[in-house]
């Protein structure tokens, strides 16, 4: 009974292999394959059909080889053998029935459809009004990316304006981003500064990702066209108070390899920024927030600030929206 089933299966394989060119691609297809007219030269030797002498030569494994010694064990209770896995085939069976070109096209589409999609993302992490002593301003920090799971083109921008004075400081980065682990991306590219300071251009390498305990972290090194080396580390944490109300502490520290007086940056630790923002996710994609931010400049950076008539530290009250699309 089983033997017959396997033989039939073997025969049907031959049937599929018979000229299928006459069959149309996708219209009106679906006739059962033509009945086999000849006995196949090499019937597929399914294991039930394994003859003892053949088995002795190691050509196949007889079906009834299952050890009858396992008292009472039958079917799925029996242990599995250790036969080697067959090599993967180098053909596609559907190509025997449908035009190869059409199948190639469909295969490609199927592959792309199951894991190779490209996705785009635009986010405004910060877009806020900053109320502070002296002059109020606006600050933004955003990111956009496009690509697959591993390779992406990432754009970043951040900066500040003081009302009535235009863009105080701003930067834009264009990065190649690559997933280097389950949680982290490595990034490399260029950064362009704009605003009141010198419009430097930097080569940059960095990383971003999710650290243990759910900390979002980001770091980068920037080498300017004047040879200045800067570094930046950022981290933040989302403390979910309710499903929609989230308190986000964040910190950013900046370092410099040497004094860059034109930019007002001193060597070593140049400044620290701490923020605490409370946002409400009306929807996941749109969350207004209020918060406070405190910044402090250190070392020569503080000295440069004082020389320019600025404070070495300051606090702001902020309100804005976090949004993404």
């Amino acid at each position, binding site marked *: 009974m089983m033997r017959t089933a396997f033989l039939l*299966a073997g025969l049907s394989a031959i049937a599929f292999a018979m000229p299928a060119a006459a069959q149309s691609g996708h219209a009106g297809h679906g006739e059962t394959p033509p009945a086999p007219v000849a006995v196949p030269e090499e019937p597929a030797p399914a294991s039930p059909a394994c003859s003892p002498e053949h088995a002795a030569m190691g050509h196949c494994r007889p079906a009834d080889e299952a050890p009858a010694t396992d008292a009472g064990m039958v079917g799925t209770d029996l242990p599995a053998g250790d036969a080697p896995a067959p090599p993967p085939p180098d053909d596609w069976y559907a190509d025997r029935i449908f035009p190869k070109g059409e199948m190639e096209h469909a*295969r490609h589409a199927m592959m792309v459809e199951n894991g190779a999609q490209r996705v785009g993302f635009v986010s405004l992490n910060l877009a806020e009004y900053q109320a502070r002593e002296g002059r109020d301003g606006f600050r933004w920090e955003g990111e956009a990316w496009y690509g697959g799971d591993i390779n992406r083109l990432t754009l970043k921008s951040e900066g500040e304006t003081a009302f009535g004075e235009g863009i105080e400081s701003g930067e834009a980065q264009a990065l190649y981003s690559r997933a280097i682990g389950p949680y982290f991306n490595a990034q490399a590219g260029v950064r362009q500064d704009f605003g009141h300071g010198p419009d430097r251009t930097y080569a940059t390498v960095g990383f971003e990702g999710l650290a243990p305990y759910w900390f979002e972290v980001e770091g980068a090194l920037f080498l300017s066209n004047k040879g200045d080396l800067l570094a930046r580390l950022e981290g933040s944490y989302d403390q979910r108070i309710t499903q929609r109300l989230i308190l986000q502490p964040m910190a950013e520290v900046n370092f410099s390899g040497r004094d860059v007086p034109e930019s007002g940056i001193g060597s070593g630790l140049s400044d620290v920024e701490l923020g605490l923002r409370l946002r409400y996710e009306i929807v996941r994609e749109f969350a207004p927030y209020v918060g406070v931010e405190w910044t402090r400049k250190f070392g020569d950076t503080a000295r440069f600030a004082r020389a320019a008539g600025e404070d070495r530290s300051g606090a702001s009250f902020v309100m804005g929206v976090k949004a993404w699309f």
Partner: protein
Amino acid sequence: MRIDRRHFIGAAAGGGAAAALSAWFPAWAQPVSAGLKAQLPTVSGEDITLRIARQTMRVDGKISRAIGINGTIPGPLIRLKEGQTARLRVVNDLDEDSSIHWHGLILPFHMDGVPGVSFPGIKPRSTFVYEFPVVQSGTYWYHSHSGLQEQLGHYGPIVIDPAGADPIGHDREHVIVLSDHSQLAPEEIFRKLKVNPGHFNMQRQTLSGLLAGEDQPLNERIEWGAMRMDPTDIADVNGSTYQFLVNGHGPRDNWTALFAPGERVRLRIINASAMSIFNVRIPGLRLTVVQADGLNVVPTEIDEFQIGVAETYDVVVTPTEDRAYTIVAEVNDRSGMARATLAPRAGMVAPVPALRARPLATMKDMGMGDMSGGDATCAPEHAAMGHCTPADAAPATDHAAMGHGAGGMRHSMRDFSVAPQVKRDPSVQTISPMPVDRMGEPGQGLEDVGHQVLTYHDLVALDRNPDVRAPGRSLDIHLTGNMERFMWSFDGVKMSDHHEPIPFIEGERVRVNLINDSMMSHPIHLHGHFFELVTGKGDRAPRKHTVIVQPGGIATFDFTADALGDWAFHCHLLYHMHAGMMRVVSVRPRGDAA
């Protein structure tokens, strides 16, 4: 004889010509919440035409875009008879390629309906004729295998009546197609999952929960945080965007199935969801499971069962009282439910139970199954084969050696030496350090619900398995994923990364161990074959086409590669497959392989 009974049922169920007529109206066009008793439109016979087209659907009064078949969602019930030839003309009226896969049907590979694997797909405004002999009976279903069309409503039920007498005696039957529906476009759902991990989860642990003493205590939250694992991540897409449907109707539409007290009512339950694993119960009624994935099982009485995406279960209930019962299909993260009513007359309702508290993932869900000190459901014969560890035989020395005594958290969650075949890839967030066979467990959140819940161990095939040989070899397949990037793969390899099929020789019998390295359940479906679950049932192993592999656990099946050709093999969570959790399986005659 059987036909006579069906005639009788038709008359009884319809309760008159008016009700029968309403079947030919789109059921969702009927007034909201009045209670519906519409039967699904049915097509049958040798020649069946199915037309795939865009349309709208109305769920709980709200209209949304959809794809239907012959104008309805779900598509018409296809009723076939074992032994007949099915000829199904499928007309694609969409502006994009489409397809229909006949889920669970044994047929020639080129009729299986997977574009790029079994055939080229059905081009826009064209027709494909599927034709195959119907060699089985039972409850099955069909759906698109193109893109994300299934989420939009491109699915429907199949019932195949047996050639001989049906061993399941029943007086009346109802088909219950469970599904999920969102106002969001499926492409948008997928994008949100990709760009914002946990986007749809509105049941996370919060500070206010901690202060209220809910969920994990602080030390556990810190431990889980260290591993970057969220115990509330049970369902990727859930009730925050989904409505859960019964035969296309929302909970407020209250689709109603009629019965007469004392009748044996057979419910053919199909999970046609894109992403939703349901826990099904009917408060007040015991459920007798008589069929799983279309094949008969020894009747077993339970109170609730989990149904993975693409699984089917037939249950018989015998309500004796003249009252209504609520059919509850609660989604596994308890963020919503599909609801219908079983009643003697239309318009009756029964109390709808509140959603139960959502479950939290445990250490076992992270693949640290052995840590509890063994598996209470481990049968001795199974243990002897090394499949599991009985509770009282947990090797204490091993535990000590592996450094998880009191702390219990010393495991590397990404130790590739545990699974050498898994590719070191960003798609692999974790590797289960000590996964155990979880087929004897009822599913997340069902361990302690106060009544009897089905497990795979309760299933025993009614008929002896057709092939009772020992497997010639075994094969491990790791189910891998990264919930932070929404990447899903087998062995760390996405479908899009690797086109080489998983090879099998025709007629060979292979034991497949599905090892879940993720913290989510995956209903895994092998096309073109039934497989026997290795649950200690010998030659009466339950035969299935889809099996849930529980988080951090193992599910094992034996199968005979008896269907020549190339077949799809994938996680049936639509967006997991779409993210790459799929592979092609090839079955070749011996000597044919390269």
